[in-house]
């Protein structure tokens, strides 16, 4: 990829007996909104810390914005923004003091780059004299994002910005990211919420330190290797047990109000003949399009 802004090759990282990252190759294009999707412990934070020069890899190379993350770390740190998963601003400084502090460290002023953060910062500006430690979760998140942006980074790394955040606030946060992308900032964001994958240009699915797949969300779902069906009954839990007993069924799992089912045969005689649930109502299997979470489950089971 010639318009790559981030490229890493064969990154490995081990902590004692734990292999945190195994041969990670990754390329991110300039201007992309790139998602790193995976559960806790998948290695997302380790990879972020390596890419932001905060943690040396055991082996492999990573170049961000043309700068080597080890050799050129000083210059690199001027050009990137990083919002760690754990709130790491100064709790005993006020909202305004934190923002001024980060602007000053990067040799700039809040005034100079206010246009970049205004959309986000205006939500917390009414509380600018409040200490950061006294802010709610949602407000801390907005302040942290403002501080990571105030020096106009070319690449922004956001480590699980929406973990523990309710669905409405999560949606708002992704709207902000879309606006930042339009201003030309490359954004690399990690999340354990599979439903956020669809909001990214491309995603990497990561589990146990290995990349399961790197693609656009549409292509990942198109690569789902089976026909997927959904079923429902008055007692989904009982139906789930029955389906798992059935030798025709490859896998069955809960998915919201439905069960998702994959059959062993490509053309199951199930979808015509139907099975019977406990209360003798017909169970209908409808073929559906898989979503990212279905793909993640299938890849984990491989």
């Amino acid at each position: 990829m010639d318009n790559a802004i981030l490229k890493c090759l064969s990154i490995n990282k081990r902590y004692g007996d734990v292999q945190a990252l195994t041969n990670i190759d990754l390329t991110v294009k300039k201007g992309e909104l790139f998602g790193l999707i995976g559960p806790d412990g998948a290695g997302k934070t380790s990879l972020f810390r390596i890419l932001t020069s905060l943690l040396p890899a055991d082996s492999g190379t990573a170049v961000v914005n043309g700068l080597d993350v080890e050799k050129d770390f000083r210059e690199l740190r001027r050009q990137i923004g990083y919002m760690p998963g754990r709130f790491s601003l100064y709790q005993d400084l006020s909202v305004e003091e934190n923002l001024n502090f980060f602007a000053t460290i990067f040799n700039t002023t809040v005034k100079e780059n206010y246009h970049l953060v205004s959309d986000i910062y205006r939500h917390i500006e009414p509380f600018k004299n409040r200490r950061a430690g006294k802010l709610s979760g949602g407000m801390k998140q907005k302040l942290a994002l403002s501080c990571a942006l105030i020096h106009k980074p070319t690449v922004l790394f956001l480590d699980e910005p929406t973990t523990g955040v309710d669905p409405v606030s999560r949606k708002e946060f992704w709207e902000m990211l879309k606006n930042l992308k339009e201003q030309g900032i490359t954004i690399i964001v990690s999340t354990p919420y599979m439903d956020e994958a669809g909001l990214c240009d491309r995603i990497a699915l990561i589990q146990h330190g290995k990349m399961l797949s790197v693609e656009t969300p549409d292509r990942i779902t198109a690569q789902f290797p089976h026909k997927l069906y959904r079923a429902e009954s008055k007692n989904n839990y009982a139906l789930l047990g029955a389906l798992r007993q059935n030798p025709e069924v490859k896998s069955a799992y809960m998915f919201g109000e439905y069960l998702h089912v994959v059959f062993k045969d490509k053309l199951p005689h199930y979808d015509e003949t139907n099975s019977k649930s406990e209360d003798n109502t017909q169970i209908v299997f409808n073929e559906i399009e898989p979503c990212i979470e279905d793909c993640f489950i299938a890849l984990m089971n491989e």
Partner: protein
Amino acid sequence: MSIVIETQELTKKFGAFTAVDHISFSVEKGEIFGFLGANGAGKTTAMRMLCGLSKPTSGKGFVAGYNIEKESEMVKKNIGYMSQKFSLYEDLKVWENIRLYAGIYGVDGKLIPRKTDETLSKIGLSGEKNSMVKELPLGWKQKLAFSVAILHEPRIVFLDEPTGGVDPITRRQFWEMIYEATERGITVFVTTHYMDEAEYCSRVSIMVDGRIDALDTPHNLRTQFSAQNMDEVFRRLARKAKRMDT
């Protein structure tokens, strides 16, 4: 059906701020009751009152038949609790955590070794008995924490965002554990930010600005709000919120 949680106009004020605003609802034995709401809607405050950890400003609440204000110690004895943020001691071994919690909840000392083995074998962690909890993957920890929270066969277990950040397969295994517990008659009171999990609940309440603005089965809520799924129901209600997430 017997009622195991009941509140009447339950209210909590912090100064001029009404965190929980006259909520009235009841939960029946064996239900999985989903307690939803945006950050700052008052869920944690309400849950703390139900667990006997915080006194209501006004109104009443009964949990497992005990008055949450006057008999909070009896409430605590009859419930189990786990949260994502804190559940087990990281620097104790797996069996030591079980031993500790079993002791705190008053499980007969003679039964603890057998209960420990049974619990671990049921969740497939028999081989980890002597592992430090901090060495376990999050998903295993959460399954263990849930088993520990119901070790003393409480009447109700409170789960505060038990599956945050857990991988999609373990998350589902966790919910299957919840279903198993309800089949044994344990009532489950659970908060979550995963809207697919709201669908797994028998009934769901949605808090907005300290009040319960909706309460019904997921199916009925979808019908009531002409929504495709619970995510849509939630967004429609939570958007009405006037309160800043403070």
